[in-house]
């Protein structure tokens, strides 16, 4: 918490006295990205072990420190002291680079997240072009093109993953990494498509701008197309960060380790850290895009008070950061919950699920989002009081109906398709589906 305060102070200092922005940079880099976030991630690991234990009627780590709080530290020390092994014929440089790339990808996506509200400055409204007070956001960098930046840096992870498998010079690691790259590339598409409605509604690519719009008009998850986009985004995020039920790349009960098979010691630890940090980053992105960042439910409360005194701003930022972390915590709990519930997906179904269900649903959802934009957002653009009560409910009713139809339609078509392919396959083999029947296909053809 101390680090947080220091960073806030640094931010204010940087905002007030432009000549010393390096103070803020320094603090973000060393207190935030090198200190606070890895520590946070270590405790997410601890939290996952505790929560997973409770789901299975166990206690979880409780031996190292009170409530096992030092368990992550102990694990870290253990990893540091293990042998750092590189296979003899591995490509040493790339082998060393791969885990770092994955970690960098997760850290870079954290750089644009507005954790708090920041302060207020006069900016052009993205929809109407009128100058009005806008949140500046408490983020390391406020990029005007934050969303494409996020898409770009999160793709680095699949590169690191593939390099890890490739450079190990081990066929199992290579196979594992190819599987996971296929998975990550497939699920990137619905993940990105799910953010398009948000960009459409807020008229800006900046995450701070999106946050500002949500404080103005309500969270995007509370609208039917926004909710659908939220669900699709979460599902594809599970696949993106290789979490259950999409944890095929490192399916611990089936494969040895997948892409990080040849990694040990702290390099394996970096993969571990990267996995959890990307999970944290994805939860932060989701909170910013759909759950209104640090906004308190149904209130624009701290917004009007910002921009006056520095002390008030600091205090309000603290509140918004706390609300933000609460929302992120709930999303992370969702990750744990799903992991405790669902079994792992089969690899062919994994692909079919992304390409045949999520992507069509995303495209239809985009159309419905446009309808929402036309009914609710565009007619009132520039008006200070936002959409009227009646208008909002008309929009809600129409889009909710369309969403329900789209959902059932998409799932129905998906099922029809899989049943159809099963039938044609059965008739072509002329026997019950079994491995032996499948093997006999080539001899017939």
């Amino acid at each position, binding site marked *: 918490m101390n680090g947080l305060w220091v960073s806030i102070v640094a931010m204010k200092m940087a905002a007030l006295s432009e000549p010393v922005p390096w103070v803020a940079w320094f603090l973000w880099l060393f207190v935030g990205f090198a200190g606070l976030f890895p520590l946070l991630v270590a405790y997410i690991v601890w939290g996952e072990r505790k*929560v997973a234990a*409770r789901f299975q009627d166990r206690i979880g780590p*409780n031996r190292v420190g009170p409530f096992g709080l030092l368990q992550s530290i102990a694990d870290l020390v253990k990893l540091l002291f293990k042998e750092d092994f590189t296979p003899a014929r591995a490509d040493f440089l790339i082998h060393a680079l791969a885990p770092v790339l994955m970690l960098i990808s997760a850290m870079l996506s954290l750089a644009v997240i507005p954790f708090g509200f920041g302060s207020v400055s006069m900016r052009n409204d993205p929809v109407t072009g009128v100058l009005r007070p806008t949140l500046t956001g408490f983020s390391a960098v406020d990029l005007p093109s934050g969303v494409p930046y996020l898409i770009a840096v999160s793709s680095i992870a699949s590169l690191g993953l593939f390099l890890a498998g490739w450079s190990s010079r081990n066929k199992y690691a290579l196979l594992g990494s190819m599987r996971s790259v296929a998975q990550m590339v497939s699920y990137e598409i619905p993940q990105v498509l799910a953010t398009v409605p948000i960009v459409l509604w807020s008229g800006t690519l900046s995450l701070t701008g999106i946050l500002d719009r949500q404080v103005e008009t309500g969270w995007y998850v509370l609208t039917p197309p926004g909710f659908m986009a939220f669900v699709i985004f979460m599902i594809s995020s599970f696949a993106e960060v290789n979490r259950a039920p999409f944890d095929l790349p490192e399916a611990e009960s089936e494969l040895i380790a997948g892409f990080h098979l040849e990694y040990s010691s702290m390099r394996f630890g970096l993969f571990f850290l990267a996995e959890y940090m990307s999970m944290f980053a994805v939860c932060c992105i989701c909170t910013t895009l759909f759950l209104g960042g640090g906004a308190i439910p149904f209130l624009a409360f701290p917004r009007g008070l910002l921009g006056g005194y520095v002390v008030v701003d600091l205090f309000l930022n603290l509140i918004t950061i706390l609300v933000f972390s609460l929302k992120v915590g709930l999303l992370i709990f969702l990750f744990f*919950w799903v992991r405790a*519930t*669902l079994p792992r997906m089969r690899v062919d179904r994994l692909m079919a699920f992304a390409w045949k269900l999520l992507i069509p649903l995303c495209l239809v959802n985009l159309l419905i989002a446009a309808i929402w934009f036309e009914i609710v957002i565009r007619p009132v653009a520039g008006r200070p009081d936002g959409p009227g009560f009646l208008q909002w409910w008309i929009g809600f009713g129409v889009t909710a109906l369309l969403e329900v139809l789209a959902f059932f339609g998409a*799932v129905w078509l998906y*099922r029809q398709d899989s049943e159809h392919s099963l039938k044609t396959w059965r008739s072509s083999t002329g026997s019950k589906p079994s491995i032996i029947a499948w093997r006999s296909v080539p001899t017939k053809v």
Partner: protein
Amino acid sequence: MAFGRGLVVGHLVTLRRFVRTFMVGAGRTWQRRGGGPQRVDFFQSPERGLEPVIEQTDETEGIFTVEYPDERLKVHERFRVLPVLVYDDADGGIRCTSCNICAKVCPPQCIWMTHAQGPDGNPVPVPEDFFIDMDVCMNCGLCAEYCPFDAIKMDQNFELANYERHQSHIFSMQDLLVSSGYYAETHPEAWMSADEQSERAKASKKKNQRLQKALSSSGDVPRLD
């Protein structure tokens, strides 16, 4: 065709399980199942031998973990690990007559013993020393089944780990001897059974006779009374 209903229900089932661990049983408080203000303390654990004993039954709800070194499960009477040699509290005499039946019946052959000798070199029905290789022993209990003098019995001590195995894992008579009082405590039902009571009476009588005979036949007589 279900549209994800099973998915939602499944998640509710696991969530219910998660919440229940905070509502019922040991997960409700900050206390351990065996009691005591644990889990928040630093480096405190109950004294060895005084650990609370807790039971796991089909009625245990919520968290059912037994935090082993600080808590333990109940050891039941028929639970057996290594054999021990019993001596009688009454006269301090060891029951074993060194008849070697246990060593013969032992499937992995981990028992051996040396006969005690009288002053003139004749064998006396007492073991001079008695060895069990605890690494080899498979805890089958056949020695205790076959012993005609109820001298060798199965113990319940399962904490046998050691830092060294070549010397300390071959138990000699000093390591193996326990009092009949100890045996009565760990095996109350067997101790009080009519069968064992009569056996005890018979065995002590028989043994006394044999001892007297052996000693009187070997000339000079240090009478044992």
